[in-house]
């Protein structure tokens, strides 16, 4: 078990969200789209250095900017 951030996950990899850094506003917005502590998310696409990251949580697919992706901490196996 390691904790990394969403941007450094491999495409296709699944993990459990352990925390969202940054402000309350960002946390609220991510939450509203189903990305919050305790849920499993799968990275669909996105480079590790820059550019948007696409992630699936349940039936929802969301694209977030790279800065946001770096603030989402994920526990992967």
């Amino acid at each position, binding site marked *: 078990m390691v904790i990394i951030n969403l941007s450094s996950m491999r*495409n296709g990899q699944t993990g459990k969200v352990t925390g969202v850094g940054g402000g309350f*506003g960002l946390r*609220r*917005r991510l*939450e*509203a*789209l*189903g990305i*919050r502590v305790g849920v499993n998310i799968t990275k*669909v*696409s996105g*480079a590790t250095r*820059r*550019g*948007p990251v*696409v992630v699936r949580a*349940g*039936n*929802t*697919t*969301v*694209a*977030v*900017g*790279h*800065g*946001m992706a770096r603030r989402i901490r994920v526990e992967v196996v």
Partner: protein
Amino acid sequence: MKILLMGNPNVGKSVIFSRLTGANVIASNYPGTTVEFTRGYMRLNGERVEVIDVPGTYTLEPTSRAEQVAVDMLKEAKDSSDNIVIDVVDATNLERNLNLTLQLLKQDIPILICLNLWDETKHVGIKIDVDKLEEILGVPVIPTCALSGEGIAQLIKRLPDAKSKTYEFDEEDRWSEIGKIVESVEDITHRHHTFLDRLGEASIKPATGIPIAVGILAASFAIIRFIGESLIAYLFEPIFEHLWKPVIIRFSAILGSGGFIHDILVGKLFLLNSETEEFISGIVQTGKMIAGNSVVVKTITGELIPAEVTIDFTQSMGLLSTGLFVPFAMVLPYIIAFYLILSFLEDSGYLPRLGVLLDNFMHRLGLHGLSIIPMLLGLGCNVPGALATRVLETKRERFIAATLMAIAIPCMAQIAMIFGLVGKYGIKGLFPVFGTLFVVWFLLGIAMAKFLPGESPEIFVEIPPYRIPNIRALLKKLWMRTHWFLREAIPFVLLGVFIINVLYSLHVIDFFGRIFSPVVKGVLGLPGEAVAALIIGFLRKDIAIGMLAPLGLSIKQLIISSVVLTMYFPCVATFAVLVKELGVKEMLKSTIIMVLSALLVGGALNLILR
């Protein structure tokens, strides 16, 4: 009594609104389609009730102007005790939709829940126990499929049962409450990835997505041109040439072939050599009408030749000739073709994916990927394009996006006219026009990103699932937009033609032509009469481009005037919306950028092109 349709974005609120009120609003498969509220009316127990379609929002803490509208509407609706909210919920995403539902249940307004996209739950393997959900939440829950209309009658029947504050919970525990609810009402069966799921992933990963995007855009362009040209060549032009022309020529004779009224209605007449079918110029004298519209004319060389008095739809400039031909036979076919393809792309769910792919690129222009959607809408008509900038988060982004669109994105009406006028030169004529506009769009974006203070926020968007567009919904949308075009365009085009005639007969055009000649002739290399097109361009761009037709411009002049007419100023309808969206001060700033860059680019083209 007022009924508000609220819910997360892209859950089908607008389709339900159309079902309830019979009023038509645009619905598309991406979040942020509705950015402004729309009012409609329905009958409820013999009473006229106002229904409002509200922009979608994820929370009651707005992050964009569109979401702000939603929150403001709710606040306003809470003032009166008999207003209610229909909370539209995406049944395939119950958990996160309940987040907003629970927030709404804390408000002081009765709600009921419309569990929409019910048909889709079968496809994704979700079962929801509706009765149990209703029992837990304490408000009516009605499953619906807005597209087919299933459940809508039931929804209307249950409206009186709407209740407020039936579900008490501690704000701290919101998500665990939601978890518990979902746990007890939802049953998910595992399902295999479908073809559309796989396509969904392939089209968003850069390696496969970029080739797919290039393919889709190239195919869209080719199809639009093909449909547009075919409609013109096989339908609209024949109708005008063979059916309408004889009527006008007869009418012209009745009006006495001349005079002020005649010239405004019919426009200029031309003489066609009956044998060679060519236009005759340099006539000394026309003889008596022999029969119908045939005459004998005497040319400069003293020759007597049989000729026909006729009109030319692109040059006569009468209300009934050019005034109808331009909107119906030159622009409408392309409007139909463009909106057919755009609607297809919208309803499939492709647009946000394109936004993600272009995200890196758009950041150079100080925007994020989602701003490609206002740009694409702007290609149809700048008015909805300008409104769609509301989905962007900051003022700076909205300014950049709106300015770029107004300057460098010609609307379909204008593009169609450019095709009609410059298209005969093929790539040699079209490439310099659209290539220049693209370069302007790009460089100006880079400049604004650099010089305007502030950061561009990152993309943050829900990617909807791919869906096969529903043909009836698609055709309805096409009809709405075509209808909207006809309603907006025809009066303005006719007004434009009327004004041109009046200005010409009062010699106002000559006057302005002389005043602006240093700029128009000196800088842009255009004849003085081109001023007329620039004046009418304030009103509408399509007829403005059309006015270039009789001027006998060279290919270089056509290119310059097409580019300048696009850039120098938005049409009045777009201008009005931009003032409303940006505010007077920002719009003034934007206008200065437009005029200056139009002169700069037009002047540069005049120097570069040969």
